[in-house]
C-alpha cells in the first residue's frame, strides 16, 4: 500500500516535470515550424549618364567609382559619360 502511494507520487512529479520541460521548449518548437528567410544575392550596380544628350545606361560598379566621376564616352555623341547613381540590386537566389 505504501509502495503504491510512493509510486503515485513519483508519477505525479514526473508529469509535473514533463509539463515544465514542454513549456521551456515551447519557443524552440515554435521556431522550428516558422519558415526561414530566402537567401538573396546583392550586387552593386551603377547608372551612367551623358549630361549633354541624356543617354542613360546601367552597368556594373567598379572599385573607386563615385557619383560625378567621368567613366568613358557616350556612344551617341562621344561626349563624357558620368556616373549618376550607385545602388545595391538584390536578386533572389535561385539555386
Amino acid at each position, binding site marked *: 500500500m505504501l509502495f503504491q502511494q510512493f509510486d*503515485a507520487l513519483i508519477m*505525479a512529479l514526473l508529469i509535473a516535470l514533463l509539463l515544465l520541460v514542454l513549456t521551456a521548449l515551447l519557443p524552440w518548437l515554435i521556431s522550428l515550424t516558422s519558415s526561414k528567410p530566402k537567401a538573396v544575392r546583392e550586387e552593386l550596380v551603377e547608372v551612367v549618364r551623358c*549630361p549633354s544628350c541624356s543617354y542613360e545606361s546601367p552597368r556594373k*560598379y567598379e572599385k573607386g567609382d563615385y557619383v560625378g*566621376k567621368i567613366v568613358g564616352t557616350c556612344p551617341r555623341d562621344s561626349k563624357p559619360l558620368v556616373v549618376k547613381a550607385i545602388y545595391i540590386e538584390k536578386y533572389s537566389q535561385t539555386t
Partner: protein
Amino acid sequence: MNGSSDVASYLIVVLFLASLLMNFTDIPQRIQLHRFSSFVRRKLYAIEEMEVDARRKAVAYMSSIGIKEPSKILEGFTDNFFLIRPVDIEPTDIIRRFKHLIRVRENSVREYVRKVLDTTERSIQYSVETVLEVVSVLRLLNKLVRHYLELGLKYNNWILVMQLAIQMPELVEIARAYVNSLNAFTSGIPIGDSVGPLVAKMLVNLQENSREISEGTDLYETEVDGRKIYVIKASGPGSNVGWPGEALEKLVEELGGTIDRIITVDAALKLESEESGEVAYGTGAAIGDIGPEKIAMERVASKYSIPIDAVVVKMSEIEALSPISRNIYEGVVKSYELVQRVIREKVREGGTVVVVGVGNTVGVK
C-alpha cells in the same frame, strides 16, 4: 483507491505548491533575471565582435592610405573628443554657444587627423574622420550596454535587465549598420543619408563647376525652365556633411534676400508601416541637425519671408547608414522630379530658387 486517482491527487498537490512558489515568492524574477542577463550577454558578445571587426576595418583602411601606427591613432580617438552640451536652463544665445562648441570640436578632430595624414586630399581626410567616429560610436554602445547590464546585476534590478534584453535585438541591428557603413565610407559608396546630395547632383545635371561657399560646402548654379537655381551640397566625394545652414545664410545674404523659394531635400526616418523610398513633401527645413544648422535655415528664411519647403525620402535608421538600395534610388529619382515640379508650379518664370541637398555626401562628388 486505485492508482490513477492517486496520481491525479498528488499531481494537484504538486501543481498547487508549485503555483504558490511561483506566485508568492521572488523565484520567477530571479529565474528571469538569470535568463535575460544571459541573453544580454550573448548579444553583447555579438556587439563586441562587431567592434573588433570595425577596429580591424578601420586599421586596414588607415594603413592602406599610409597612416603609420593606425591602432595608436584609433586608441587616441575613441573615448576622447566628447562634447558637453551647453547650459539650457538659461537659453539666451544657446545656438551661438552650441555652434561654437561644435566648430571647436570639429576643428580639434580635424587637427588630430591632419597631424598623422601625409596627403592633403580633403575627401580622404573627411573619410578618416568618419571612420574614427564610427568606431567610437560602437565603443560607446558597447560600454553603455555593459554598464546597464552590470548595474542591473549589482542591484538585482530585474526590470532594468529585462528592458535591456528587450532592446538588445534593435541595438545589435544598429551596431551592425554602423559596421557595414564602414565599407561604404572606406570605398566611397553613397549611403541612404546621401539622398540629398544625390538629388542636388541630378538637379545640376552632374556638372562640376562649383564654388566653395562655406568650409566643405559647395554652391552650384543652373537653370530650370527660365528659373535661376542655386544648389547647395557638401563637397564630395569623401564622407562629409558640410555646413548647409551657414551656406544658405551666406547665399541669401549675398543675394540680399531676393529669393522666391527655398527647397530642402533630406532623408527622413520612416515609420514601420511605411515603405522605404517613399517621397513626401511638406514645409520647413528638412535637416537632421542638433540645432545650429537648422535654425540658421529657419532664421534666414523667416528674416526675408521666403517660403521654405521640405522634400524627404523615407528610410529606416539602418538604411540611412547602408549603401542605397533600389527602392531608395527610385525615391531619389522621384524627389528629383518632385523638386522640378515644385519649381515649375510655385515659382514664377525669371524667379530664383535655392535647393539644399542635405546629408552625407560620401560617394557623391
